[in-house]
């Protein structure tokens, strides 16, 4: 018996403005980067607050205060207390994993209304006590007598106090031991991607993003967010894209990961960023019941693994799998959003798409063809906009659906590489033509 899948509609999708970590949104805890989006999206529909089946949120930082961000968002958004909510983690693709689960649950007929998305407050990722220091605390607490306590305390050494930076540890692959930046360096070396190519790509990303903002293209997708310690200011646009960026300026930056001979700099990588995104998924029944006007239909998705040290090539494998699954060629798509974790990584994916030999190294037997510039990341990408890790997977879809709608175009793919050695991709179809 084959499972017949139902159509899955994306009614709306919104995102927060992005802000480089440590800037405007630094005080906004993860749930608040998403909850207001959920409220805003649902307010624009006639769906009552007690008719949402699930809230699924991607998040990687898992703030200690909010272990299940998804549920917290459901409640903070004013949804009924009975609303189920949970959090998913697939590293950089957590947001895409969230929407994929929403897709599956609606396609399978289990749910009719799901809010899915992602949030990440990279500013609020903690510093952690080292294992030695933690053990010391435990031993002191366990010690009964005063002399035992003194004995336990005497084990203290000053280096115990040097903290583990959660964010740095999170961005280092636990299996191969490489920092994400070093995986990009590896691709650059292996495929001969030059510093100039990377800087040029990065520069374009900034200018595209700045132009899109100036043309008001982000107005449909960004919902202004209250920030500051008094929550009395509204952030309307992204903090990150630089209109004054130049290739020359980028060329002056020192390689950050492979300091002596590398090509990957902070300038041609995505900045760590705070942000959130959310989408409303509905079944056909719900669309009719609530008289909704969906922007898009989610056609399918695909995730794929590869060597962790070459994780940047993930989109190649994910998109290849998606094409095989759906029968829709990449060249048939009007727009493609690929996350710009690193310029080197994105350019690597382009090589894999056009070069049979490189594709073969990743067991991809099809030459899909390079994605032309006018279709790829047309409003800039993460190098300018930033990469709030848990959110990007869904943020790409938000950006994609609004641009497809604006162009009255048909199909688009959103894809991204995933730390740990995976790729994810999903295909959507615009319904407002």
């Amino acid at each position, binding site marked *: 018996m084959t499972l017949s899948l139902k159509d899955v509609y994306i009614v709306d999708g919104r995102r927060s403005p992005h802000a480089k970590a440590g800037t405007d949104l630094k005080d906004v805890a993860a749930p*608040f980067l998403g*909850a*207001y989006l959920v*409220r*805003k999206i649902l*307010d*624009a529909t*006639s769906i009552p607050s007690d008719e949402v089946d699930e809230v699924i949120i991607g998040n990687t930082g898992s703030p200690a205060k909010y272990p299940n961000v998804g549920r917290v968002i459901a409640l*903070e958004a*004013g949804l009924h207390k009975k609303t189920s909510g949970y959090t998913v983690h697939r590293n950089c693709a957590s947001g895409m994993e969230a929407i994929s689960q929403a897709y599956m649950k609606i396609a399978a007929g289990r749910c009719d209304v799901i809010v899915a998305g992602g949030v990440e407050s990279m500013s609020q990722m903690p510093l952690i006590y080292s294992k030695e220091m933690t053990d010391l605390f435990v031993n002191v607490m366990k010690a009964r007598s005063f002399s035992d306590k003194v004995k336990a305390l005497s084990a203290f050494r000053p280096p115990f106090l040097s903290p583990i930076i959660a964010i740095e540890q999170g961005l280092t692959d636990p299996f191969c031991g490489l920092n994400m930046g070093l995986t990009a360096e590896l691709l650059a070396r292996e495929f001969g991607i030059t510093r100039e190519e990377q800087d040029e790509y990065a520069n374009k990303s900034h200018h595209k993003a700045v132009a899109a903002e100036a043309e008001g293209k982000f107005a449909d997708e960004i919902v*202004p967010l*209250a920030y500051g310690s*008094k*929550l*009395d*200011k*509204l952030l*309307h646009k992204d903090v990150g894209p630089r209109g004054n960026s130049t290739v020359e300026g980028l060329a002056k930056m020192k390689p950050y990961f492979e300091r002596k001979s590398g090509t990957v700099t902070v300038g041609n990588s995505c900045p760590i960023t705070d942000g959130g995104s959310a989408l409303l998924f509905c079944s056909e029944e719900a669309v009719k019941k609530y008289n909704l006007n969906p922007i898009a239909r989610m056609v399918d998705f695909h995730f794929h693994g590869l060597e962790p040290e070459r994780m940047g090539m993930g989109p190649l494998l994910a998109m290849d799998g998606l094409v095989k699954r759906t029968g829709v060629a990449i060249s048939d798509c009007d727009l493609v959003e690929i996350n710009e974790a690193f310029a080197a990584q994105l350019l690597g994916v382009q090589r894999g798409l056009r070069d049979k030999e490189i594709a073969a190294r990743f067991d991809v037997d099809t030459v899909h063809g390079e994605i032309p510039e006018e279709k790829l990341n047309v409003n800039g990408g993460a190098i300018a906009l930033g990469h709030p890790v848990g959110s990007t997977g869904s943020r790409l879809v938000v950006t994609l659906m609004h641009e497809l709608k604006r162009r009255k175009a048909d199909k688009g793919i959103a894809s991204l590489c995933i730390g740990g050695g995976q790729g994810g991709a999903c295909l959507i179809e615009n319904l407002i033509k």
Partner: protein
Amino acid sequence: MSYEKIKFEIENKVAYVGFGYNCDKSMTVLDEKALTELRDIVEELHQKKKELDGVVFHSLKKNCFLAGADINLIASLKTENEGAHGAEQGQNIFNRIEDLPIPTVVCVDGVCLGGGMELSLSCNTIICSDNPKTQLGLPEVKLGLIPGFGGTYRMPRRVGLPTALDLILTGKGLNSRKAKRVGLVDEVYPKENLVKMAPKHFKGSKKKQGFKDTIEHLASDNFLSRKIIFQKARENVLKQTKGFYQAPLKILDVMEAGMMKGRSSYLASEAQAFGELCVGEQSKNLQHLFFLMENSKKYSGPASSGELPKLKRGAALGAGTMGGGIAWLMAESDMAPLMKDIGPEALDLGLKQSSSNFMGKVKRKRMTYEEFERKQRSITPQLDYSGFEKTDLVIEAVVENMDIKKSVFAETEKHVTESCLLTSNTSSLSVEEMSKALEKPGRFAGLHFFNPVHRMPLVEIITHSNIAPETIEALYNWCLKVKKTPVIVGDGPGFLVNRILMPYLNEAGYLLIEGVPMKELDEACLNFGMPMGPCRLLDEIGIDVAVKVAKIIHAGLGDRAESSDLSQQMVDKGFLGKKSGKGFYIYDEAGKPVGPNEEALAILGSARKKMSETDIQMRVFLPMINEASYILDDGIVKKPSDVDLGLIFGIGFPPFRGGLLRYADGEGLERIYKAIDKFASEVSANRYAPSPFLKKLVDDKKKFYDL
């Protein structure tokens, strides 16, 4: 023996005394019957003391232990002696409780105020529940009284002199957490466990004194420091009440003089003071106000037949200072409001207003930062109408312009459901006229808040000819829910409060022109008990706004409402009041007045006129009474109590005077009529012509409150 009002039972050698027995009111009070029964029960306890391990006082009523002595009982007291005697009777019962040789534990769940608190203080141990409704205190001072059942004697002995003075002189209530911290209660339990835990306190109820307590005790328990504490308290009272209120000063006298006295002679002086205060005019006025407030908690407007709309989700149209204040109020009461305006700057302004209202509470620890974040973020600032379909109550606060308001309502009506109530926070425009912009005017009303929204309790609900009674009732209940005091008023220039305020401000202008110095004018009004003199108030309102409203009222009411052109001249010179830094006074950056604005006073020329304080007061307050008579005559409000509530909660008319019309009644309407008539011939026939309504009252030898 069986009792009707108090449940008395003995179980396992423990006597349980339960208040709120056979009580169908939401609050239990100690009325005459309950006090008699309590006296008998206490005597029974004395007889049975040998067979009992202890006594537990508790309540059968949800959320209320004892809300105090029956205020009707207090109101019925006629003479000082009667009052003092009443207090002594209560004191005697509580003394007998204190004298029981067996342990006594009181279990407080819910409200425990006044007489209830005093009863608790006479027990060995007070335990209370962590119910958020639990509140302990001695609020008698708010009624112009001294706690008369031993509260001023026992409170300092339980929590120390400084805390006791704070509680008794302000009348504030403490929640369970604070009550535990100051040592008023011995332990806090979940309410379900409270009575069960009580017998465990029979033994060892003497609590250990901590180091801090010992130090505090030493510091406050000697002659010199007590003297300093009392002196400081007296200074505070004078500062906060400007000396208008007798009760706190009396309380200080009794407590200070009684520090060295034994129980019986102390209590005699407390009872004596209670007797004096309870029949005094001030306390009677404050009791009057109490009853007005109690009555206003029940809707008494036109009866509704249909189901009342439920007002769960709100929206503020216009996000300025007022709109932000309204959004704050809605967010505070969990209505997750939308806040719409036409430009992003206004949205920021609205958010700032709301945030600063919340931050005040956060700073005073009335709210956690987390609660603030949740509520502040529940406001959705926006430039379009998305989500309006989900709102149940829209309050409009856009610019004060009839055409704009009408078009805003016509537009808004397209975006809301049929059951959504649409209201306008207009302060001066005709609600009747505005209602014409709506296709369904039945759901429309004026809802006039006073600025600043978070400080001013009054809301005028303004009706019009096509309003549905359900709209009025739903709005009335909503105002109560958000802890505001609603008054239902008919449409008319300036509605209720601004219309009565008009002569206060107008006459100020004329008096200044006549040569009465501004300082003397404002001080005369302050000395009457007003929170601000008319010139300061004009600065606060904004002189341009006042001119605009004055014109509307003048146009509507005719010559008696004509104002001098002083305000217009001020506006022409750019003296707009506090907001422009200069008005009648000059303001510093923080908005504090630093002195008179000599440039403005120069407009007045050099004429000087000496006028007695009473004469100044009569010049401004008499026309207010006159205008209030017109208002009653016009049917703008139904009852004199509406006028009094409106003025006390809308402009801070001195509460100890019981309201404008109660004040008039007290002075004698005939006297007032004659004085107004005299001004009509001596000052201005237009502005002081006595209202026919007032004349009729005088002719009929009636008072306002006889209506």
